[in-house]
């Protein structure tokens, strides 16, 4: 179980004295990911989803809030003491090309973390070799052919599998996959997504999936939770299929409306929401963060900021004063 409460992060922009202003990447985010569970952070670039993922993986610091890993709060610990906890959370980077050292073979890449582990637990070299073969088999690669290869001899999909195998060498409790399929060829993406789902089921690893492509979030498991993040705030949160089928926040609706419709296979949603072009970003936000682009804003939205919570008749949590279901998602033609 990994939980976060009120995670806040501000990036100070240095260098440009005149135009420099602080960027609030995260404004008090709560999350909870159960053991073996799945969660997806979705939102546009710059919304803070990647920063949050990196904070959860221990690769970035945060200004305020509390992260607990397996019930242990991190704030009371020294950096050295935190490390073994954060090692349980492994990051899968977006770019499988830069995530592997081009000068090292797959064998060498896997041996380094395994050697560390063998030293800690007093295991033999033989165990290391067995374990390397085991993790490669788990990600669907043939150890015999892959071990001696350099990264450039592997396709994008295979590299991403090696990256996942490397993460598995430390027996992680959670994988944080940041846009893990966006650089993989279209015909192979589902394979990686299916692998993540499979690892959840077989090893009980939880998966945190970070993406701008909402559709991919469904494929790591339909029991997952979806967090829609806008400018550092979670604006809607609920079970994947509920949020996709019945979004209530206008921002979620805009995101879903923007997804291309496969004409010929699908019919477009009936009430697409198109956000207004944001005109002035320099003004401080007093009310709802989405108010300036929201086609449904009212006076209240401009003066007061809604917080994430539940209202009647809506199964998911949302941060909107005027939640309303709209049919924005395309439907398959076969269902009509």
């Amino acid at each position, binding site marked *: 179980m990994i939980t976060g409460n009120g995670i806040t992060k501000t990036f100070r922009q240095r260098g440009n004295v005149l135009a420099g202003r602080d960027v609030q990447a995260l404004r008090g985010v709560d999350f909870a990911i159960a053991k073996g569970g799945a969660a997806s952070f979705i939102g546009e670039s710059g919304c803070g989803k990647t920063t949050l993922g990196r904070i959860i993986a221990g690769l970035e610091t945060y200004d305020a809030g509390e992260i607990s890993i397996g019930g242990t709060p991190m704030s009371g610990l020294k950096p050295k003491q935190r490390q073994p906890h954060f090692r349980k959370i492994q990051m899968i980077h977006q770019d499988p090309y830069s995530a592997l050292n081009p000068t090292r073979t797959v064998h060498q890449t896997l041996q380094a973390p395994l050697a560390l582990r063998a030293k800690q637990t007093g295991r033999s070299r033989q165990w290391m070799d067995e374990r390397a073969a085991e993790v490669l088999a788990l990600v669907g690669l043939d150890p015999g052919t892959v071990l001696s290869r350099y990264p450039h001899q592997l396709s994008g999909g295979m590299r991403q599998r090696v990256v996942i195998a490397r993460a598995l060498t430390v027996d992680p409790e959670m994988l944080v996959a940041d846009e893990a399929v966006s650089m993989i060829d279209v015909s192979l993406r589902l394979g990686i997504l299916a692998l993540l789902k499979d690892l959840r089921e077989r090893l009980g690893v939880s998966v945190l999936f970070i993406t701008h492509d909402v559709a991919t979030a469904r494929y790591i498991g339909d029991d997952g939770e979806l967090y829609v993040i806008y400018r550092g705030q979670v604006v809607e949160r609920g079970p994947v299929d509920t949020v996709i089928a019945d979004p209530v926040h206008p921002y979620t609706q805009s995101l879903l*409306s*923007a997804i291309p419709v496969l004409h010929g296979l699908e019919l477009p949603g009936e009430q697409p929401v198109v956000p207004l072009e944001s005109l002035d970003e320099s003004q401080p936000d007093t009310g709802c963060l989405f108010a300036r682009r929201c086609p449904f804003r009212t006076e209240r939205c401009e003066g007061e900021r809604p917080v994430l919570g539940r209202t009647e008749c809506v199964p998911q949590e949302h941060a909107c004063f005027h939640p309303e279901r709209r049919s924005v998602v395309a439907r398959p033609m076969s269902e009509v």
Partner: protein
Amino acid sequence: MPHPASSQAPGVRIDGLTVVYKTPAGELPAVRDVSLTLEPGTITGIVGESGSGKSTLALSLLNAVQPPGRIAAGSVEIDGLGDVVGLSGERLRKARGAHIGYVFQAAQNSLNPLKTVGKQLLDLGRSHGVDDLRGLVREARELLGRMGLDGARVLDSHQHELSGGMRQRVGIMLALVLNAHVVVLDEPTTALDMITQANILKIVREVHAERGLTTLVITHDIGVVAEVADRLAVMYGGRLVEQGPTREVLGAPRHPYTRGLIQAIPRLVGDIDEARALPGRPPTLATVPTAGCVFRERCALRMDVCETDDPAAVAHGTRIVACHAVKVREHA
């Protein structure tokens, strides 16, 4: 409207185009025997994965394939311009921009970071011998305004002051400002956010209609093509394996690759378990088979003939498909 659609959109006919790259292993074809007609006033989308040859095909339209690549065979006829493959030197340079506009990948920084957009516009005008530079700037401002930007402000900006979506709009402006009527967009929305992507695609559609263009969109994302294109062409391993009206191809794909590709797209609705990845991996220049069907390694319908004979592109009604299996089933 400053440009009545009366200016007839030109047609483009690519015929038997083969582009080869020189490698240590000899000359290998990146594009092999591709024939494709862009009807005047239509948007055609080319979909392919990495190594499919789609970008090389797009560059061939401008006869801009860089060494070690070269156009080995075939022609690219553009109405009012002739065979682009035969052009060279000054005439080719003038044709780029004036006849054919090219919008580079959104992810690439195709703008000069040291110059304002306006300066680059003037450079473009001068290099094409435009006398009325004021008119050019006015035209550019109108185009940017049409795309929802503050033209004067954008022309005064440097690249780093523009967001990804704004840069892409500037790219479209630069491609159209010299009044080109054939436009090639290479991965127009890669690395853009969903909402920005939807905006850009809407602009592409509208500008295409208003100015009477013939447009070619190159992408790896079927969704992008589905949104904008009238016709869809699917490339694999340097071959055009299937083409036809977008809706028909998406609704009833014929070629096993097209079918597999559509099935492999993560979808917002429908049964998760229906979707599955294609086995194997896309070929690279070095691994693409030189004889027989390029897709056979990953194909479920593979037959003996696929090993030896490269299937010819055969028209089936509105559809052109290059597959032995498709033929067999129809004869049977």
